[in-house]
């Protein structure tokens, strides 16, 4: 997916056009004239004909959900996903706690501890989806692009808690191995030309 069209935020003036619409009648006589016109031009049958025609040719304009689904935008903010590193398949989350801090509905909570390799380990990661307002701040603040929003908007269940299991949010390892993990393109993702903006640090190796 190419992001260029989203990044170009300069809407040129000729992109707009005026809708050809007449001014509303103001006087009583003008209003009367409009009623007479609408009544005798039989506009009603124009609409009825359009419907009838489409019914005859079976040209459907709706989709049959849930068999069919609409494609959704890359910036759509549905239930969170936890991503893995492409290099090692390891979890990206480093347990920095920024998502927990920034969450405005205070629905993220994590526990961290030191693991056997003296590294920081996330021992518990929970999002209370019952409180989440899907604002996307967590995905935006995440320095590792670890927590992102996914496209899974079907969160109907008899228990909201069913959606907040860390294991469910995490990219399944087989999907990862298959190279099928999708990167999130919304806020928090790397913008194009990022490399040009970074000042290089000299290295002495």
């Amino acid at each position, binding site marked *: 997916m190419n992001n260029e069209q989203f990044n170009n935020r300069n809407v040129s003036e000729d992109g707009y056009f005026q809708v050809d619409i007449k001014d509303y009648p103001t006087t009583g006589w003008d209003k009367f004239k409009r009623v007479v016109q609408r009544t005798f031009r039989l506009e009603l049958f124009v609409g009825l004909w359009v419907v009838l025609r489409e019914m005859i040719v079976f040209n459907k304009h709706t989709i049959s959900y849930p068999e069919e689904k609409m494609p959704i935008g890359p910036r759509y903010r549905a239930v969170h996903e936890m991503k893995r590193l492409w290099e090692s398949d390891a979890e990206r989350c480093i347990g*920095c706690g920024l998502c927990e801090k920034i969450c405005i509905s205070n629905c993220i909570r994590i526990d961290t501890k030191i693991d056997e390799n003296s590294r920081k*380990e996330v021992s518990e990661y929970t999002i209370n989806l019952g409180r989440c307002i899907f604002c996307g701040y967590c995905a935006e603040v995440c320095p590792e692009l670890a927590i992102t929003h996914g496209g899974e908007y079907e969160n109907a269940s008899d228990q909201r808690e069913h959606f907040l299991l860390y294991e469910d949010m995490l990219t399944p390892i087989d999907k990862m191995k298959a190279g099928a993990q999708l990167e999130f393109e919304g806020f928090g993702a790397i913008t194009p030309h990022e490399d040009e903006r970074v000042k290089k640090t000299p290295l*002495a190796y």
Partner: protein
Amino acid sequence: MSKITINIDGKEIQTQEGEYLLNAARANDIFIPAICYLTRCSPTLACRICLVEADGKQVYACNAKAKDGMSITTSTETIEAERRAIMEVYDVNHPLQCGVCDQSGECELQNYTLEIGVDSQSYAVKDVDRSSHDWGHLHYDPGLCIVCERCVTACKDMIGDNSLKTIPRGADALNAEYKESMPKDAYAMWNKLNKSVIGLTNGTDVLDCTSCGECSAVCPVGALVDTHFMYTSNAWELNQVPATCGHCSAGCQISYDVKHTSVANPEDKIYRVMNEWNYVSLCGAGRYGFDYENKVASRDEKAFEKAIEAFKKADTIEFTSSITNEEALILQKMKEKLGFKLINQEAKAFQTFLKDYSEISGTSLYGSDLKVVHNSNFVISVGSALKTDNPNARYALNNSMTVNKGAGLYFHPVSDPIIDGMGKSIMSVTHAPLQEEAVLYLVLDLFADKSKLPESLAEYLASFHSMKTITVTETVKEKVIEIVKEIKVNEETGEEEEIEVEKSKMVSKKVSKEVEVDDNRLLELLNVPAKFDETLAKNLKKKDKFALMVGPDLYTHPNSKNLARLVALIEKYTAFEVTIIPPLTNSLGVALICDLDDERGVHTIGYNTKAAFTLSALGDGDLDMPAMNQQEGTLTSVNKRVNPTNAALSYHGYELNDIANALGLEAENTIDYTVHLPVEAGFKAQEFDNLPNHYENDGTEMRGYLLENLKVQTSDDESVEPFNEEKMEGTLIYLANPVRQFTEFTHKATNLDELSGVYMSEEYLAKSDLNEGESVRIKTEKGELVVTIVSDNKIAGDIACLPTFDSKINSEALFSSYRFATASIEKV
């Protein structure tokens, strides 16, 4: 010290002559960047970022002293260039792991990098292996370390352990070009930084110190972290509860950093203890002994009913001094209303000592405090195992040694390697137990103006002096003139010639002389080290501020009354300012508030001490009480300050106030009593909620309030009794805790893992056939006890220490009341 005016960036400010510019600026809210400087310690000059221009000359604000009329500019173009280069250097090879670093944004490297506006890097050097070290209770990551040496400075100048030092980094030399291209100070700082990292002085990879953790508190980055805290929480998640440490009488300012326990458990938990390290230093118990709370789920009504019944039946309440002033007042009110007897032996001894002292001094309290000790330059300590009785007193002693170039005398029967490690200027005198009176007489003899002393006392002191003749070998330097033949080249002829040259040389010669000297029998009695007189005379040079600390050994001494009077006489007739160290957390408060009794009645209720019915904050009694970190109230410290403490953790059970209310007193909360603390004892009628608990920028302690030192009627009788020369001899035991342990509460804390048993020095164990871990039977005329031997390298000599922190070992039962006793120690 006089007030002077200096000008910083056009702002006229008042300060003291000789004050460091940085401190003067900070006290007046003027910002000068500084990383390595620690208030109360000597300047380290590692970071060089505090560079300012004083009267047109570049100086370091942390070690340049203020002079009258000085004009200081904190920022010029060259200074800004230096600062920018310094911050860039600090960022060279600094790992970008801020996301997981335990400093979590409370990072001075981050702050100054942003403050100076470093947005690009111009320098580079090849990195070396800097893998992290587990030093026991501390974790050191050299990768994150910026070698500001604040940890080293704190350990040396404040704590006195000298456990840390800089060791070689083993890095490549800096690129030679930098010397020319870089700002001068930045290069010098980098050159030094590139050569060192922090290491341990003992050469191993495990700390062997008094485990105060002050180094991790002062670390500006996340290089030194408490192992127990590693990766458990971000700083911003922690709620800071301002409090006062409840382990000893120092009453240090602390904040309990509190957060929910885990995702599953929303109950608050203390994650760490922090302090205002520029103005107060904690000990290991204060920093790591925080989880001693009494977890109580709900009010146990049956136990409460039983408690009320027990109170109705009882005639005595016995308690320890680990209680707040308010609780002490409740107990006193209960006594007044219901006629209980109040028993607290250690506070009673202290109370009596203070009263005896007042009879001569004319004041209700001692005149000095530990702050005075910090600022003095000659300190004497008598009758206290300083490092375990009151660690802050030990820091004050060490601080005066290192920063004020002070000297001192440490009188104690148990010799202490920590005190000896403070340097040569402190002399330890290992006298026999029971000889504390002789020590005080010696202090009077050495320092009092004899002409002003009461006549009988002067005569008594004179009786120890006699003249004796000794042979002294002196080294005399003599001038000897020699004629030496030298070969020289004749400048005119170019030939070598032999010339005779006269040369004078200094030759030292040993001469024996017979000299008549003054012989002081007190010195011999106290077993002073060799050359005591000479060393003392040398140590006393240029000393003008004297401080004396006296400790708990004196209060329970059989002649404590005489000792108290001697202490008062020292304060009156010498230049010494006296601090009397209270034995336990709130002994001073209890001594001032409660009217304590000597004899107990038939039915006793114990508060934090075992009795027929026990109220306990340890959770092992008949009715639970809140521990110190679960209640609000005030504590009276050795500095005569009434410090407020807040509840860090919730408590759902009954407290003493509920019992008092059930027995007819009336107060909604315990802190309603704060305003009623006895004004006639020096307290002030102040509401608890109005008591501050912080330090100002200039170091002013805004904590609670200071006790009034009231005038007391004196009888003009200044007579003191001669002392008994009888020494306690044989196998001796001493009632003292190891470092980091004070009471059963510190024993309960998970991070304080000291073993309970009898503590013996390595020297003692090597000499005897006893070994660590063996069980021994200790027998005195009072009783006997079987305990395990613990080897302790923080004590020396032949006296074994029996701790009081473990209630399973009833050490007190072996002692009459004095902290020393003769005993027999046998293997079981």
